[in-house]
């Protein structure tokens, strides 16, 4: 698993390569350190819009030609924008990877950002947001996130506010693109059926001459400590009540992250960190399922966090049982959290969490795309060592550590509780 090569080109581009010869495939990922964390009004959602415009062509590879070229070769490609990063990937038959490398090198510098293409893509993204707005849990999540971050740019959803999506100008996007899409701000991860030496020299040839660029400025708006529990409720259509409790949670590089991962497994079942493959482990014997769903206060439950540069949130989301109130469910949630703060968990429970993580990792190792994903993803909030040592660091977690992090982070004062109440139904 540790057989990989990490190099920094002279222009600052970090390159990680991992040979995997199990199938004739290569997956290549280009990561830029830019996401909604780098945005302020009236330009929320700009990173996501720039990601969309990266599919709209360069002089060498016009828009429709790029899609068709990748499809014709039997490849797949896509892109994702998140809080801290934007990433573009291609997984191709091994002998066709050069096309992907050429496209990626070209659009790092030469995307056109045509006015007409932008006008059309703006409405596509508005439509994407409208689709999200159809979902009660998107509406609730957005309200909770905004309440949890008054100062830090994690305040807004990655897709941005509709007002900003509708008012941004092409030149705003182009400036954002030129500021952040530079080698010094990028990490490339490639895994699959290649020889490292040949792959590295091809990458140097294609990317090595791109000017390094300047290290982009960062917004430095640290979130002050929350001074007490915040509660909110929103209203909407339907019959179903939802509750979300979000606790401020440390960065992925923080030592407490690992004890919290164990705690998450115990409370709500393991969170799957793989982008492709993995997951699927149910949570029906987790502590919160037993206390809330088995006891018929909720009909479903999920919990989890994500890996971020700055402290983000740990979420518990409940679909409330039709015959119960959100207050009753919240009281039961609090009793379970109190229990994990009062009583030290058993070593067996920790061993179980570690086995679940080991299984999720094994499932993720089945496919090359996911292995390539980890090379660069881990560099976005820590480094590849974080991934390689993850299971060992989980194994080092002690029962006392779990109790300590439960007391430190899963406090009422440290959380936002939001409810989604169908219009006309009684609230909390």
């Amino acid at each position, binding site marked *: 698993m540790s057989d990989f090569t990490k190099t920094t080109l002279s222009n600052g581009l970090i390159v990680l390569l991992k040979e995997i*010869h199990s199938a004739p495939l290569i997956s290549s990922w280009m990561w830029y350190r830019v996401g909604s964390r780098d945005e302020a009004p009236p330009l929320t959602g700009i990173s996501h819009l720039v990601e969309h415009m990266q599919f709209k062509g360069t002089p060498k590879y016009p828009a429709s030609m790029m*899609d068709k070229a990748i499809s*014709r070769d039997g490849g797949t490609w896509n892109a994702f924008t998140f809080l801290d990063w934007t990433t573009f990937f291609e997984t191709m038959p091994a002998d066709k990877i050069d096309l992907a490398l050429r496209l990626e090198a070209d659009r790092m510098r030469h995307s056109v950002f045509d006015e007409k293409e932008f006008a059309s893509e703006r*409405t596509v993204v508005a439509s994407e947001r409208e689709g999200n707005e159809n979902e009660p849990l998107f509406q609730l999540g957005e309200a909770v996130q905004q309440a949890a971050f008054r100062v830090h740019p994690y305040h807004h959803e990655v897709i941005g506010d509709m007002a900003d999506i509708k008012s941004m100008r092409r030149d705003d996007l182009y400036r954002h693109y030129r500021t952040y899409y530079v080698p010094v701000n990028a990490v490339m991860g490639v895994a699959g*059926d290649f020889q490292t030496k040949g792959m590295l020299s091809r990458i140097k040839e294609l990317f090595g001459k791109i000017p390094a660029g300047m290290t982009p400025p960062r917004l430095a708006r640290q979130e002050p400590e929350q001074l007490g529990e915040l509660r909110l409720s929103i209203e909407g259509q339907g019959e179903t009540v939802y509750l979300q409790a979000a606790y401020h949670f440390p960065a992925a590089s923080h030592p407490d992250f690992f004890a919290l991962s164990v705690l998450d497994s115990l409370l709500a079942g393991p969170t799957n960190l793989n982008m492709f493959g993995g997951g699927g482990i149910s949570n029906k014997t987790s502590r919160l399922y037993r206390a809330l769903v088995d006891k018929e206060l909720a009909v479903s439950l999920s919990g989890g966090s994500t890996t971020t540069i700055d402290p983000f949130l740990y979420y518990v989301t409940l679909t409330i049982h039709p015959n119960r109130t959100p207050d009753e469910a919240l009281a039961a949630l609090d009793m379970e959290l109190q229990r994990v703060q009062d009583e030290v968990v058993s070593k067996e429970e920790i061993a179980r969490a570690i086995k679940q993580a080991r299984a999720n990792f094994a*499932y993720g190792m*089945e496919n090359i795309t996911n292995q390539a994903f980890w090379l660069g993803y881990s560099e976005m909030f820590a480094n590849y060592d974080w991934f390689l040592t993850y299971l060992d660091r989980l194994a080092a977690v002690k029962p006392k550590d779990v109790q300590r992090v439960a007391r430190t982070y899963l406090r009422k004062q440290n959380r936002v509780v939001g409810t989604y109440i169908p219009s006309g139904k009684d609230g909390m």
Partner: protein
Amino acid sequence: MPGRPKSLSVSASSLPGPEDIHRRVLPNGITVLCRANFNSPSVFINGYIHAGSLFEPDEKLGLADFTTSALMRGTEKHTFDSLYNELETVGASLGFDSGIHVTGFRGRALVEDLKLLLELLSEALRQPIFPGDEIEKLRHQLLTSLAIRAQDTSDMADLTFDEILYHDHPYARPEDGFSETIQAISREDLIEYHRKSFGPRGMVIVVVGAVAPRKAMDIIESVLGDWQNPNQLDLPSMPELKKLDETIRKHVTISGKSQADLIIGTNGPRRNDEDYLAASLGNSVLGQFGMMGRVGDSVREKSGLAYYAYSSLNAGIGPGSWTVNAGVSPANVKKAGDLIIKELKRFVKSGISKEELADSQANYIGRLPLSLESNGGVAAALINIERYSLGLDYYRRYPELVKSVTRAEVLEVARKYIDPERLAIATAGS
């Protein structure tokens, strides 16, 4: 890992074929298929039995789904909690999914836990006891899902589309039922449905992962080889599907939604029909290739009307459907619908170009290794081989089959199924 010569084309040996797919039929009628993959210490299982919603009376729609959801709620050996405890403690998963003709299952585990996974599968299939209190809990969960479905524009458009296209045919009925029908189902109904429809005859099970095929087969035989059910019924036959005489439109109003879902479509071939592959390649050009084919190009790329707009061919055992789906702002439903119908008209009038066909053929052949890279991908391929009698060498022959499809065949199948004057059009939203 030692180096290997760089592959220059899709090497045949990486695709599943007769010498690495192991198949055995047990005396009780269960077909087992296995393929080894030692690249990760995990295993994936999937399969199906011949039980499905075709058995349900109209007043108890959702019975098959309800029963299937209840299989792991308690068995002769385990309570709900103790059964899931066994699975979750080792990071394994197991789930069931009820369809019209078959009830499917899938699971995964670290290879050291394969035997446990198969034993729990066998228990859930053969020895569920449907405890009364668990059934009532589950009923509330199903009713909540139906309340959420009623608010989901995509689900409601799907449901409405099936009602139009499959009028008077069992395919018109939603497999998760309605709240009245879920309320009408008793514990005795679940027991009776299970007793009559669950059995080994026609069952298929696939194992792919870090285990020698012979060993996997032996475990399956030891766990499921003694299953017998003399009461197992055959599925009832289906009536003929009547085609639409004219275009029928239906709208479901769901207030407060900022986006509407639109489905325009018609009948499609069965998976086993000879013109299936031609229809599939035609569909790729229509609404898949690149950024969602011609439909995506027109509705999304050129007009900016939708985040998603694509076509799909849904082919199985019975009469299939051929649909175009789009999520659009309520104000743009008509505009998007007109653009889609325009593309359908062009598709049946002039077919596809030589270049378009060649592009999609190259895509189908080139993406094969990608679709087969995970254990789950290979397992799905083996299920296809068995369910549709494609032959163990199907994925080796596949490139030639794809290449042999002609433009004329695509045009013929498009005209056979798609009549732009006789479409089912369903919308859901504000």
